[in-house]
């Protein structure tokens, strides 16, 4: 069975959940093989094997992290040439998609982005894609080269399936072109203990109805009671009430969590484009006519300044 290469998303060896989801999906179309770029593989290897990686390709050279995107594309291009995999999977993040963009040109291979599912069709890999912000579902194939597929986080629950996890070192001689854009500094902005927006299983978002920057606190407290990430509508970000990294929507991030709670968000098309693939949608809004209620599995018509604190208190009480 041909390998399916899964690019590992990690921070110094702490593997992100989306990688376990990708390993799980890879099994549908071939033999999962993890590609680990950077340092910290000792911390990551057990987890990768636990979730199905028969092989772990390790490219660990300090300079791989010093440049934007291109070195990872070169590592993957080398593996594609050597292993002729059935597909290459990455997380559909900005970084992941750009890596695939470069890899596509290097290997003359088609790219499918924002996949929400994978299946095999007589040897070909079929990706289910969610386009127009989730309004349309298409099934697509790569017709040239190796299928390169960026998969949305939360597309499938990770399922443990122990595998060998044999480590194979990959040596890479970076080209001059890959070293053209050098990262000279990295700044991590303080965001506390909350999960990352695009990875979180639960997202609680605030919109114009929240009313002020201070009032985002009621949204944050509900999010914290659920272990959720905090999102914001464009109106909130444009007003300067919340940082732009939190923006969900057409000009912001796409989220696809198990549960999305929209607070004081009317649900304009631009916002819906960023969240309508969420599995369960809950809305709290004063305006019964707000379009968000057309999407919501459960809606409360009311003042979020009363509903949210009451819900937060009730959740904390039930958690004991």
């Amino acid at each position, binding site marked *: 069975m041909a390998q399916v290469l899964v690019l590992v998303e990690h921070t110094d060896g702490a593997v992100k959940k989306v990688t376990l989801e990708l390993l799980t999906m890879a099994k549908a179309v071939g033999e999962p093989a993890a590609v680990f770029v950077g340092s910290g593989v000792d911390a990551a290897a057990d987890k990768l094997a636990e979730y199905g990686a028969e092989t772990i390709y390790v490219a660990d050279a300090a300079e791989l992290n010093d440049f*934007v*995107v*291109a070195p990872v*594309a070169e590592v993957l291009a080398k593996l594609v040439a050597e292993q002729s995999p059935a597909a290459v999977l990455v997380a559909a*993040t*900005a970084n992941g*998609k*750009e*890596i695939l*963009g*470069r890899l*596509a*040109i290097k290997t003359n*291979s*088609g*790219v*499918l*982005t*924002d996949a929400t599912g994978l299946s095999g069709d007589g040897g070909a890999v079929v990706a289910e894609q969610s386009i*127009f*912000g*989730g*309004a349309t*579902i*298409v*099934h*697509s194939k790569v017709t*040239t*080269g190796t299928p390169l597929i960026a998969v949305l986080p939360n597309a499938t629950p990770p399922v443990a399936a122990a595998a060998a996890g044999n480590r194979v070192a990959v040596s890479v001689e970076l080209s001059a072109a890959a070293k*053209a*854009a050098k990262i000279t*500094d*990295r*700044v991590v*902005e303080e*965001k506390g203990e909350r999960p990352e927006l*695009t990875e979180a299983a*639960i997202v609680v978002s605030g919109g114009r109805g929240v009313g002020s920057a201070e009032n985002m606190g009621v949204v944050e407290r509900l999010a914290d009671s*659920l272990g959720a990430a905090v999102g914001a509508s464009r109106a909130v970000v444009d007003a300067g009430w919340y940082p*732009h*990294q939190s923006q969900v929507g057409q000009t912001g991030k796409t989220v696809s969590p198990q*549960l999305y709670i929209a607070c004081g968000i009317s649900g304009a*098309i*631009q916002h819906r484009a960023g969240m*309508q693939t969420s599995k*369960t949608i809950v809305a709290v809004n004063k305006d019964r006519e707000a379009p968000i*209620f*057309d999407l*919501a599995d*459960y*809606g409360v*018509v*009311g003042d979020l300044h009363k*509903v*949210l604190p009451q*819900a*937060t*208190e009730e*959740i904390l009480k*039930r958690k004991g």
Partner: protein
Amino acid sequence: MNIVVCVKQVPDTWAEKKLDPASQTLDRSGDNILNEMDEFAIEAALQLTEAHGGTVTVLSMGPASATDAIRKALSMGADSAVHVQDDALAGSDAPGTSLALAKAVQRIEGFDLVIAGCESSDSRTSVVPAMLAERLELPQLTFVNKIDVDGSALQVRRMTDDGYQVVAASLPAVVSVVEKMNEPRYPSFKGIMAAKKKPVDVLSVADLGLDAGSIGSAGAWTAVADAANRPPRSAGTVVEDDGNGGIALVDFLATGKFV
């Protein structure tokens, strides 16, 4: 410095988007606008040439109607435009689009910088700037919200999920910008009048030295098997807050085992 700004005409972001059932490509028959993210790229280019001198050339690939988006960019202050327009381009995927754009960029003499929006609101793949950098063998500085140029040295702030990176390269280079880069200017009346006289160079696939089989639907590296609109979500339960709305909400969350 001479800057090429890649812009795209897209369906109005406030309209529902759908596929044309016959071609399974985006139905562009409704209102079309200049891709919003590209306005930040135009503004960035104008500010750079205002500070350092030089020219701004708008580059767009699209049907005849894309002229409207090009004119808007010119009315904001860009100097000239290149419009890659050919029926053979219809149905191009990202590799095909980046091929045509790369060939067009290579015809623009003495360019120092290519700037694009970090995604189009219609296809949202975000891969074209990276593909363009790969094809042109230029440094790639993407998702930036700050650009500093000093001679031939370029330094940008690249946004990441958890903060930002400072990235350095030398010109020429490919840059993509995020919103929050700047505040795009509105075209003035004078700008709108001046735009009508600015040169727009229309190039065909043959002008670019490309074979029709390498672009458009014929040259696409992916194919759609089937497409369907997501079934509308069945309307759920909506309750009025009677003073216990928060508790009712938690009861619902408990049924989904979220609490």
